[in-house]
């Protein structure tokens, strides 16, 4: 076959393909994301998304709050604001953090567009390409995305049913230092972990903190679920016992409304100054409208009673999930029992691959997030995350029934062909869209 004499120029359908920064490597469409598109259909029981059940909010009262805000303070709410965030809301956040034991000054707080933005800012001001961040194994998907976007190297630290293991953390830090690499942050979700569902007890927190202190690293404590414990107790934040070595991330996404995108960081003085400047660079200022809506809500509504309503809602759903798992799952399947928060972490029977199984699950009208998304290093093939926060209990039971059938079918396939290994064209971790994170 002779090539044609006609000169043809190829196209990549993206004229900027050679201009993208190196940190965009890996930002590709994936089969997993394609399957999540189906999960958004109502026929599918989605145990994938971490969406708060905002329908439980007093929506009429919120409507009144917003209307009053625009009517009485519209010229402020619709204007630019401070790069550090509204001072009244920062004072109110002190009250919100009182149950987790944090004592601070309003000046210690930087309000951000969700705690995700605070996480981004902390990594932005601390990490150069190649710096190491130590995280739990597994950890929050979109934290991994942030670390990746700043070209950090992620080192996973094994967990047990009490969360991050201190001795493993100590060894990991030593190993990083011995390798000549520069560790910068220890990122942890100590309460009602996403995705593992476990919680560090007081003794474990003290041990982990001691390891971090002795290493000279900064701890990044992410605490979106701390108020959502099902036995009505609130774990004491690590930041409550260490103000200089910990940056604490909080959010109203799980206790009020994720759609308002209001979170915050509590940081030592020097760090806070840089976070404010970085916040101004990134967004000029967090949304005044969203901040003042939250502020009005906190001032006029029994917000902690609403937190108790959320606890009751999520406890009932957690129970529905656990009861269904106990009665329906094939032998060899195990899962964590969360004491709060949104998630249970499931380990499949030997030989099953949660990513490979996802198409079969979506065809059976049930969705989950495969475990590989929660690791930076390809672990997690045998795991998946189930979220119980959004579907009603009956839908959760139906979803688990469908999932159990899928696992049984997959066991049959594995019995025929053995445990699947990576093949050409198989993808690595893939992050779902925000409503699934």
């Amino acid at each position, binding site marked *: *076959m*002779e*090539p*044609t004499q*006609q000169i*043809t*120029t*190829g*196209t*990549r*359908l*993206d004229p*900027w*393909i050679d201009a993208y920064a190196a940190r965009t490597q890996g930002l*590709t*469409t*994936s*089969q997993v*994301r*394609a*399957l999540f*598109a*189906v999960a958004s*259909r109502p*026929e*599918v029981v989605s145990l994938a998304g971490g969406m708060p059940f905002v329908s439980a909010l007093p929506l009429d009262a919120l409507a009144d709050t917003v209307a009053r805000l625009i009517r009485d303070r519209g010229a402020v709410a619709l204007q630019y604001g401070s790069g550090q965030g509204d001072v009244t809301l920062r004072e109110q956040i002190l009250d919100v953090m009182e149950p987790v034991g944090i004592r601070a000054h309003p000046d210690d707080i930087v309000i951000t567009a969700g705690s995700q933005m605070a996480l981004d800012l902390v990594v932005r001001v601390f990490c150069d390409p190649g710096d190491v961040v130590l995280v739990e194994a597994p950890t929050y998907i979109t934290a991994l995305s942030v670390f990746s976007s700043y070209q950090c190297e992620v080192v996973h630290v094994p967990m047990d049913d009490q969360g991050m293991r201190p001795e493993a953390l100590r060894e990991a830090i030593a190993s990083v230092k011995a390798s000549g690499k520069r560790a910068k942050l220890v990122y942890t979700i100590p309460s009602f972990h996403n995705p593992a569902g476990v919680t560090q007890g007081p003794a474990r927190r003290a041990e982990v903190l001691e390891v971090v202190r002795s290493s000279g690293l900064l701890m990044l404590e992410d605490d979106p679920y701390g108020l959502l414990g099902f036995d009505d107790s609130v774990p004491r934040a690590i930041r409550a016992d260490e103000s200089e070595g910990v940056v604490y991330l909080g959010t109203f996404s799980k206790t009020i409304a994720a759609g308002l995108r209001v979170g915050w960081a509590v940081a030592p003085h020097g760090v806070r100054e840089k976070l404010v400047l970085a916040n101004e660079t990134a967004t000029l200022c967090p949304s005044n409208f969203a901040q003042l809506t939250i502020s009005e809500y906190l001032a006029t509504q029994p917000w902690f009673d609403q937190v108790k309503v959320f606890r009751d809602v999520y406890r009932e759903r957690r129970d529905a999930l656990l009861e269904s798992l106990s009665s329906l799952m094939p032998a060899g399947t195990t899962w964590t029992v969360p004491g709060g928060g949104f998630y249970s972490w499931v380990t499949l029977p030997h030989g099953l*691959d949660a990513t*490979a*199984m*996802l*198409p*079969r699950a*979506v*065809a059976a*009208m049930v969705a989950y997030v495969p475990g590989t998304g929660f690791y930076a290093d390809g672990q997690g093939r045998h795991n998946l995350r189930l979220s119980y926060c959004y579907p009603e209990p009956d839908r959760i039971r139906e979803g688990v029934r469908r999932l159990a059938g899928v696992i049984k079918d997959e066991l*049959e*396939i*594995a019995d*025929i*062909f*053995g445990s*699947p*290994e*990576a*093949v*050409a*064209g*198989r*993808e690595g971790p893939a992050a779902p869209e925000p409503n699934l994170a």
Partner: protein
Amino acid sequence: MSSNIEGHVIVLAGGLSPERDVSLRSGRRVADALRVAGVEAEVRDVDASLLTALVDHRPACVIPLLHGATGEDGAIRDVIGALGIPYVGSGPSACRASFDKPVASALVGAAGVSVPPSVALPHATFRELGATAVLDAVVGRLGLPLMVKPTRGGSSLGASVVRSAAALPSAMVAAFAYGDTALIERFISGTEVAVSVLDDGSGPRALPVVEIVPDGGFYDYGARYTAGATEFFVPARLSPEVLASCAEAAVSVHRVLGLSDWSRVDLIIDAAGIPWFLEVNVAPGMTETSTYPQAVGAAGLDLGALTAGLVAQAIARS
């Protein structure tokens, strides 16, 4: 711009297939192009309210751009036809034959187009006969490397290139995740091309051949739908004779399967310049990275005007 089409056009997109997202993107693009061409067009998902909506607000025509089962296996076209609503594209029986890859390959092969040797096996066969024995027999007959994929479905979902016998079981598992039957075919090495076929009233003709060069060597889902991940050449860097062979093969596939209006035929051109049939799509992708719109542009045609013409043709046909 205005068209001569009276009434509105419904572009069906989405559905419950794993290709839902691709279909929605295809549907939005075609609807936008139609509106620019002066046709009132609306994208509509497929759900339990669809038929009532079609009856209550009867469209002038429907364009099924659902990818995957239901959309491409003829079922939705059967239903639309039962409502007496014109639609663009192939009829149900042609879709059924085209969507099932082994059936399509058999028909196309019988018509003289080269098709890779293959076997289609349900997983029950492996359970009954033992996976190792069956796979050994398959490798013994077809050799290596192999292409493994579900017999139904598109966008390379569940498809793998297998270069060693040891990797074959995993590829089977990946394919069976998307369906109960897997197609194992001899991997043909060569130039990958897509040939868009258009029949706008004067018989099917091939549009310029699009050559596909994915960065990773395999035109998988990411390579198909991530802008920049694949390089395309239009027309393909092939001799005029081979380009003509591609066009002839694609039109032959379109004819032998009884397709209508539009289709896309995927081929591999081997070192000798022979086009090998891989599969045919009765609802070709119309996304920003799909090959059909590229071929349309290379032919000097406008996607909106072309689609409006097919709408008018479908209405006249009914």
